[in-house]
């Protein structure tokens, strides 16, 4: 969409408005999508129309029936995520479960979760993300003198990415999940430059997903298939979590290092962790207020 939107402005400024009635393609440039209102300005009827139109377009593109949802946030929920770095073994099960769940492109390869490997020793002095190695590939994990730190979107409360977006295509929802309206993303990548965690990824090319790996249960602002020219990132599986389910990465984790729940509920796993374990956030000095908390589950405090 983004590139076609840009092209369209070029055409407009050249005065050849007639180009606007060019034939439409399944998911490329079509007029209805072009004039689609910003997600938050759609009324219920318009939204339904958008969802059905997307379903039809995806079916045409992929030859499969999709369910495109726009499930809204629970009113009494702000999500929090916990990750026990004393348990993570660096197996990357989460990475690949996320790819499959969220229709990430295989070629070019896009992976929302990166697992960084660090020297155990270095942890004593603090974690310097630049020193993390995402490409480790030993015969077996965990390696004795290493520890592993999975990183994806931190769903910051004071998110820098959303504040720099010129079109308002990305924003923080009431439940704390930072979402992207892919139809409004113009691909300027300001958000990527602003994100201190490298959590956002750009579709330089048309994404490609093997047919047998498509997830057809999608949220418009989450795992709906993207196109060339838009930015994407982890959204805590909002197509699942806004229905009360756990995120896919959490369920894929063999060691149980990943925890998820409602920060407003004192009984939730995430709040129990905050009450009883040492927790930390990455780059706290930036004031981004991440809602992704690393914790030391093995250590008693």
């Amino acid at each position, binding site marked *: 969409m983004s590139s076609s939107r840009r092209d369209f402005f070029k055409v407009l400024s050249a005065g050849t408005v007639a180009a606007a009635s060019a034939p439409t393609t399944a998911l490329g440039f079509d007029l209805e999508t072009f004039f689609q209102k910003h*997600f938050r300005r759609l009324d219920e009827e318009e939204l339904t129309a958008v969802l059905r139109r997307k379903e039809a377009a995806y079916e045409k593109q992929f030859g499969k029936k999709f369910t495109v949802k726009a499930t809204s946030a629970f009113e009494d929920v702000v999500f929090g995520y916990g990750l026990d770095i004393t348990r993570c073994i660096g197996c*990357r099960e989460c990475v690949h479960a996320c790819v499959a769940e969220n229709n990430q492109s295989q070629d070019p390869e896009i992976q929302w979760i990166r697992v960084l490997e660090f020297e155990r020793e270095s942890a004593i002095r603090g974690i310097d993300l630049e020193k993390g190695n995402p*490409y*480790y590939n030993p015969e077996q994990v965990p390696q004795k003198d290493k520890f592993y730190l999975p990183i994806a979107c931190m769903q910051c409360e004071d998110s820098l990415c959303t504040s720099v977006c010129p079109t308002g295509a990305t924003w923080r*929802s009431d439940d704390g999940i930072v979402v992207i309206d892919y139809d409004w993303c113009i691909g300027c990548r300001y958000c990527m430059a602003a994100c201190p965690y490298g959590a956002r990824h750009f579709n330089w090319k048309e994404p490609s997903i093997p047919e047998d790996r498509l997830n057809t249960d999608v949220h418009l602002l989450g795992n709906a298939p993207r196109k060339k020219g838009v930015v994407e990132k982890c959204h805590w599986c909002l197509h699942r979590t806004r229905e*009360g389910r*756990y995120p896919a990465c959490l369920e894929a984790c063999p060691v*149980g290092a990943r925890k998820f729940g409602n920060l407003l509920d004192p009984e939730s796993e995430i709040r129990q*962790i905050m*009450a009883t374990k040492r927790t930390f956030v990455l780059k706290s000095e930036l004031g981004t207020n991440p809602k992704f908390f690393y914790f030391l589950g093995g250590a008693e405090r």
Partner: protein
Amino acid sequence: MDAPDSSEPNGYQPPPHQPLIWGVLGTVALLVVAGVSVRLSENPDAARAANVLQALPADAEATLMDEPEMDDEYDPCSDCHEEEPTNYTVREMDDEHDEMEFAHGTTWCLDCHDDEDRDALHLAGGKKVDFDNTSELCGQCHGSKIPDWKAGIHGKRTGHWRGEKEYRPCISCHNPHLPAFEKRKPKPPPKPPARNGAEVAAHEPAPAEEGGSHE
């Protein structure tokens, strides 16, 4: 039909009880290196919270999954052990069970297996524990893990964070005889970023040496 997401881009107001949490998190900053710091929280109420957890029952909506099936070959144990007198000597098995790897701290078979009824386990006080309920046995020596496990902090829950969920018995992750979590081959690493404009995340570290293997 789902209602649209009505949230405002920057209009988020932290709900009233949140400052409490952030207060807890905001107390200490340590481990600062090269502009990247890790902030650890310090909670004065930790001890109290731990006590509360001891008393806490497992989440009412959480169900404990079945224990993994035991090796058929030896089931029931009494087939042989009814005849054989119990051998109390701590030793390597060389007749039966010799293929079994065993490395569990300072424990020995009869700390867990009942010496009179081989079809059961037992606690130190003699109380018998069923083979389908082994987590109670583990709790005897790893008591501090139990509250964490019930609260969903140690171990793993699946299903619904809001609604029904399942959690796993200890032995679904820890072989009772070799309890250290089994090592495994990691899933494939990401491809190093191509130079020609393919995906390179803002803070992606440069790829390590060719292959990137760190063994």
